[in-house]
């Protein structure tokens, strides 16, 4: 969202990383303060976007795309997109605009009606360590990779797709669970190979609708996920929930057994929503 700030010239101090649509040469030069005898006219600077310390890094997201390319064997023939999701109550997801903003470059990123998008590769944006900026407050949304293999029945997910989503999502730094103060620590501990291959990796997925159960099926093998793999393990409290990017999607949240290779990539996950008609118990025979 473009924001116009009317500032006195002496106060025209802003972070060097602040970005404008105009190249640096077009920016107004900094001038000294006016005096009562020689008043300076107020200077109007229009800032079309500002980088937030926790905006998504274009470089990291490209690294996520590189990871996708390297490990696409998990989901052959799939398509990678990224997706915006609400994180705060009442946040409007329609009408959001996205752009890649570097020091001298601005590239619009078209957003699909389902709030998904793809990123173009741009050498200049990479060089300028550009940020991906949305027209919403950073902490009002969360982000995920979205990998969809062809042929997966509607309403179901394929485990290999989810494994790849995790690797891309962690590599690209899409999850922002921590308070910004500790974001650096979160980043340092986020190794995609560890997060996505450990039972304690805790990479959250979001279903399309509020969940009652999630069932895995691979051939004749069928299991329902335990309660602790739904609703962010069911351990969130009002005090901790604001630090989880599942804040408003808690009822759609689940963990998938990414680490358990006894479930092949072609395992399908089916979902029973809270408001679905009651189904017979999916409990397997012991």
């Amino acid at each position, binding site marked *: 969202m473009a924001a116009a700030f009317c500032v006195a010239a002496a106060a025209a101090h802003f972070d060097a990383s602040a970005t404008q649509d105009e190249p640096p040469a077009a920016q107004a030069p900094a001038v000294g303060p006016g005096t009562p005898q020689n008043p300076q006219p107020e200077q109007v600077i229009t800032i079309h976007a500002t980088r937030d310390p926790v905006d998504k890094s274009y470089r990291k997201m490209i690294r996520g795309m590189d990871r996708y390319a390297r490990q696409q064997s998990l989901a052959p023939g799939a398509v990678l997109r990224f997706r915006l999701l609400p994180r705060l*109550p009442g946040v409007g997801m329609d009408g959001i605009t996205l752009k890649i903003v570097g020091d001298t470059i601005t590239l619009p990123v078209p957003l699909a009606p389902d709030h998904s998008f793809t990123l173009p590769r741009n050498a200049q944006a990479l060089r300028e360590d550009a940020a991906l900026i949305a027209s919403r407050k950073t902490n009002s949304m969360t982000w995920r990779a979205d990998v969809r293999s062809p042929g997966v029945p509607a309403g179901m997910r394929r485990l290999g797709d989810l494994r790849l989503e995790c690797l891309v999502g962690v590599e690209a730094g899409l999850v922002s669970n921590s308070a910004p103060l500790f974001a*650096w*620590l979160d980043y*340092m*501990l986020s190794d995609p190979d560890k997060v996505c291959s450990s039972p304690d990796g805790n990479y959250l997925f979001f279903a399309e609708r*509020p969940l*009652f*159960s999630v069932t895995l099926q691979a051939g004749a093998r069928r*299991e*329902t996920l*335990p*309660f*602790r793999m*739904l*609703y962010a393990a*069911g*351990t*969130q409290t009002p005090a901790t929930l604001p630090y989880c990017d599942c804040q*408003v999607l*808690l*009822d759609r949240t689940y963990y998938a057994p990414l680490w358990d290779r006894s479930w092949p990539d072609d395992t399908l996950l089916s979902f029973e929503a*809270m408001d679905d008609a*009651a189904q017979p*118990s*999916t*409990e*397997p025979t*012991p």
Partner: protein
Amino acid sequence: MMRVSKRVIFHMAFCVTLALVGCAVAPPKTLLPEARLEQGLSIGRTSTTQALAALGAPSQMVKFDSGYQAWLYEYAAPGAQAGGKDGTPTAECVVLFGRDGIVTKIRRRLPQ
């Protein structure tokens, strides 16, 4: 750029964990007999108040912004061994209450 070794991070995490956990010891879980679940829960009838009265507090309870609530009761299923291979300690009975506080769904899961 701040550089912090993994060792420092682990020490920090250890101290924070100690401070948070203290000397707490989890109390042993009390498992419900399966028959009590069958008697105490009925879709479209049982309210949260009635479930509490009949079965006691659930092992876990999640209240959602939508007004729905998911409760977890753990029970001793006939023939089910405590401690399944996936770490689930017991059989599960998940109860979903709707916005009106009445049971809308029930499902069970044995240790895998």
